[in-house]
């Protein structure tokens, strides 16, 4: 299995290392007595699709919350393109180029599908424009329509988001993240609650958008993970238990012991 490390020289300027988009160093977060992440040293290369797996409560969503500024780590650092982004608020992290989707659908329920995506596309420019009608900004409208098309929701553009099916809302969730033009897309169980057919379509969608992005995906469906990911990181009780290609992970005895055995 060949990994792309063709991102060119990264801003990090660290000679001799693969161009990493994101690194964490000793990332630790505690909630009272509970250590949800413990000394996580993580690295992902440009263009990679990385899956994070682990049992319930392993700290996967918490890891995303740290990366996107929702939670401030107790200690450790997060470097994005070599720049320390630890402790920045979510809006600034979004501006740097990290977007995410949520495990529990998190959209604007009373806005149309198009508006959900349009408002995300607009976050990069024109947000402080007060006196022109929002539809007058052709660049934003075009971007929003292109994103809707790429997540297969164009026919539902004028539907209220709360009236979409569960599967459509999950894809809209990805669309909103995509519309912010990220370099790194973090997907938290994008296929949660989807039927087999819907899961298949969403996997194809992710494979399609992965061409220009780095993707970090939390996923419970092992079949999906094994097919999609270049590499897999296994979290267990907030620690990295193992990391490697799907083949390596499938045959790793420690992983089998805690996770894959059924």
């Amino acid at each position, binding site marked *: 299995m060949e990994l792309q490390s063709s991102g060119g020289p990264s801003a990090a300027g660290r000679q001799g290392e693969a161009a990493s988009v994101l690194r964490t160093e000793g990332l630790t977060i505690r909630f009272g007595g509970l250590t949800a992440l413990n000394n996580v040293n993580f690295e992902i290369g440009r263009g990679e699709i990385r899956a994070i797996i682990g049992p319930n409560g392993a700290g996967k969503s918490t890891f995303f919350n740290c990366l*996107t500024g*929702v939670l401030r780590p107790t200690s450790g650092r997060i470097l994005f393109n070599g720049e320390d982004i630890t402790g920045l*608020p*979510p*809006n*600034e992290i*979004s*501006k740097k180029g990290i*977007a*995410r989707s949520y495990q529990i659908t*998190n*959209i*604007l*329920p*009373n*806005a149309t599908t198009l*508006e959900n995506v*349009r*408002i*995300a596309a*607009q*976050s*990069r420019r*024109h*947000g*402080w*424009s*007060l*006196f*022109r*009608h*929002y539809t007058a*900004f052709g660049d*934003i409208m075009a971007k929003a329509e292109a994103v809707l098309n790429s997540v297969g929701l164009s026919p539902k553009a004028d539907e209220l988001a709360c009236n979409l099916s569960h599967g459509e809302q999950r894809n809209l969730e990805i669309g*909103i*993240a995509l*519309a*912010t033009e990220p370099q790194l897309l973090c997907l938290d169980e994008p296929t949660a609650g989807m039927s087999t057919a819907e899961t298949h379509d969403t996997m194809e969608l992710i494979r399609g958008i992965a061409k220009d992005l780095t993707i970090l995906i939390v996923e419970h469906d092992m079949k999906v993970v094994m097919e999609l990911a270049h590499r897999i990181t296994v979290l267990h009780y907030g620690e990295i238990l193992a990391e490697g290609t799907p083949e390596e992970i499938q045959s790793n005895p420690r992983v089998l012991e805690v996770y894959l055995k059924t």
Partner: protein
Amino acid sequence: MTDKRHSILFWSGFAIVMALLFVSPYVLPPFWQRFLTEVLIWGLLAMSSDLLIGYTGMVSFGHSAFFGLGMYGAAAALLMFTPSLVLALAFGLIGAAVVSAFVAYFSTRLRDIYFAITTLIFSQIFYVIIFTWTDVTGGENGLNFPRPRLGIPGIWSEPFTATTLHWFVLVVVAGSYLILRRITQSPFGMVLQSIRENEPRTRAIGYPVERYKIMAVMLSGLFAGLAGVLYALQNRFAAPDFVFFLISGEAVIFNVMGGIGTLVGPILGAGTFLLLRELLGRIFGENFPYLIPLGFIFIAIIIFMPQGLLGFARRWLNR
């Protein structure tokens, strides 16, 4: 297609209402004429708070401070200089802008009820300052001042009459409505509505939510201050009662009665509320506790027309 039809409908409706309000001085007896002018002024106050309540999802009880500072700002200009309409407007708006910037900066860090309470506390602080600083504000007695002339400096001017004052108020309120309507449909306005719908998500897609809220409170405060200036022009006095939080409460009531998030609804709500109060006073006498029946009507509206009078009328018309 439907957009175009919608827009034709909107502008025809707007033209008809403007025409009716324009000719009203020729038709209405002086008392009701004055009453209508005042409804427009309170409507502007209500509309300004709708930008926060209806579009951003923040309930402000600080609007009496913005309204009052507009009023006292105008009073200062009219008492210190040769009375001038432009100066009254400028001083009133500056007063409201300074106060709303101050309130916005501190209160937008908080959400929901904490925001509402913070704005209420700020408005009460300004009330106490104005009430006790008698040398400057006239304290409890307030300030009386002359009315400026209507006109454009250096070009033309004439004294206000009840009719030209009404027209002036009408132009300012209608212009404010069109500006506020455009703001709510601008990219900025869409961000406000996104904050109302889902604040954490709005932040996550890259918006500095606090800065947007500060801007919303300041804009809202500016229009509330404008209403205060108009009220000062109409009544030629400023009094601390208008800075008291009850005025903010009334603005919220106008919104809920008329329909939040519609801009027009709050004007309708103000008109309905003030008309009912006036009629109850006339029927049962001056000392009648009008708030009791008004309270019941208010509760009935909330229960039976949760989207307010305008929302109800719309749905009824669409049947």
